[in-house]
């Protein structure tokens, strides 16, 4: 059988014809996630990174420009700016995270509910209340709530969630409407599944893609809102260091020591930007139709 010796070459598929698409990271997502990761790590390990306590005052060394001991200088009470930058994201990041979780969950459930009952009384009530919230500037509603409840962790979360859920509700309803018209929802009804099961197992999981993208985009936005509230004195209260309140404290000295404004501003900017970048990148990565435009 020597003449029958046919060697079968191992078939190698060209790169672009592979059956399972290879998972590739979008560069924007990588940059975003890495930078945001750094911010989170710095915030967590702030006590190890900084030799100074962010609340220790040294009135003899007030408003000093950057030196070797204080790489970013000191503020109007002689506190080390670098230490305050390290610590300043802790509260805001946690509040943003909790807020996003609450408002995304609530908004998605409400939106999904409205989409399944589109055109009903329930749908009208839900969506008109969303319109009502969207008719006011968000910051005004947040201000009202925080001002009435005294500033603090939970009042902030509440204020931001109340204004935040509407975005998810609208998005979930829009996506849900399309899903509800699909045959697999009808098939699920024909299988005898209850409305609750259909919602939990079919509608909500299928809306998660766009919702997740929205979560990333909103994270940066929420961070900025917290900074804004802190700037107005209604966010995180002194002496707890916070980027937003650092900005407002630096305001009277902004001509004398402009770095006091610059660094917390940069911290907010970089964090918000990194989360938004991560969101954009992930959205592109998981959208099969967008994939071709960058791969």
């Amino acid at each position, binding site marked *: 059988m020597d003449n029958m010796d046919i060697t079968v070459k191992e078939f190698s598929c060209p790169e672009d014809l592979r059956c399972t698409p290879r998972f590739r990271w979008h560069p924007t997502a990588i940059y975003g996630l890495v930078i945001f990761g750094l911010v989170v790590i710095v915030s967590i390990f702030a006590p190890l990174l900084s030799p100074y306590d962010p609340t220790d005052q040294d009135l003899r060394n007030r408003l000093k420009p950057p030196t070797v001991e204080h790489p970013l200088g000191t503020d109007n009470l002689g506190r080390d700016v670098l230490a305050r930058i390290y610590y300043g994201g802790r509260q805001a990041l946690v509040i943003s995270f909790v807020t996003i979780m609450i408002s995304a969950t609530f908004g998605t459930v409400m939106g999904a509910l409205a989409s399944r009952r589109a055109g009903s009384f329930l749908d009208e009530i839900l969506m008109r209340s969303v319109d009502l919230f969207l008719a006011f500037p968000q910051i005004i509603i947040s201000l009202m709530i925080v001002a009435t409840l005294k500033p603090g962790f939970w009042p902030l979360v509440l204020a931001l969630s109340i204004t935040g859920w509407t975005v998810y509700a609208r998005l979930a309803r829009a996506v849900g409407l399309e899903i509800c018209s*699909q*045959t*697999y929802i*009808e*098939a*699920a*009804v*024909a*299988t*005898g*599944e*209850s409305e609750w*099961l259909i919602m939990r*197992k*079919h509608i909500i*999981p*299928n809306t998660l893609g766009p919702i997740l993208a929205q979560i990333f985009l909103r994270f940066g936005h929420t961070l900025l809102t917290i900074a804004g509230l802190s700037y107005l004195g209604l966010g995180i209260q002194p002496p707890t260091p916070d980027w937003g309140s650092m900005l407002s404290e630096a305001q009277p000295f902004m001509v004398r020591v402009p770095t006091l404004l610059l660094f917390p501003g940069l911290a907010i900017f970089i964090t918000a930007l990194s989360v938004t970048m991560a969101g954009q990148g992930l959205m592109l990565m998981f959208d099969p139709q967008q994939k071709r435009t960058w791969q």
Partner: protein
Amino acid sequence: MNDPNFQNDDLLDIHNLKTYFFTREGVVRAVDGVDFKVKVGEIFGLVGESGCGKSVTSLSILRLVNPPGRVVDGSILFQGRNLLELTDAEMRQVRGNRISMIFQQPLPSLDPIRPIGDQIVEALLVHKKMDQRQAWKHAVDLLNLVGIPDASRRSHSYPFELSGGMAQRAMIAIALSCEPELLIADEPTTALDVTIQAQILELLCDLRSRLGMAIILITHDLGVVAEMADWVSVMYAGRVVEEASVNSLFEEPLHPYTRGLIESIPVLDQDRKRLNAIPGVVCDCINMPAGCKFAPRCKVQIEKNMTICNKHEPHLLEVSPNHKVRCWLYEEFSH
């Protein structure tokens, strides 16, 4: 068998079913007084062209008609119980458990983001007391039953990884999961190519004899009906125009519409330039003609110049024990 009086072998008895759609333009009488019976273990063919109300009939059985549509009259006795009088919770116990349904398009009928095994498990857990592992094992068995090769591995596949035929098999597996007494197959093969069609139909036939369930086969393909069905109803404009055993219907089609349908099947060994078609289109659903709904397109009516057709609607007349027709041509049988 919840009703003690239920003794005959009629599994499903639809009487005078009327499903109307209340649209802005007017009332669409999609199903207007349909009667038929499906016996235990029988394949019942429901034939008609697009828009004649066959799908709405099937949706009405499972009470899946969405607003603005509504079942306005009639009764649907399933094992002696009127489905139209059940509460929503009781109806959920029937759907998927006693009566299940497979749809025309297999792929859109499967949830795109969940593996097919998971979807069968879900259908099982809705109706049966089982734990997750038992259910998963059962799901794999079902996939085997419907002829999916390498079922244990395939159960982890997502719908987009399946071909149309595979997806339809998976759909059938979901429908069969709770061993229903009645399977409604709404054009199960329309979206599939011809060879796969034959396989799916064979599978349905095979499952019928193995599991002893009845099937309502909705189709516009008379060839499929001739091959599979035991009993056939031909629908036109929301009404049954002819009902007969499959042999009787194909040997001696009575209604001009049925004849037209059978004549319009292309025949391979005849040299013809054009297909025989029934002239015209299905009548306007809102402004139905007063008499026989088929009269404006009916060749016989025009040839014989029968005036009664345009004035009064004929009743469903029993021509022979297993043949009924709704046509003025057979008026002599009304006594």
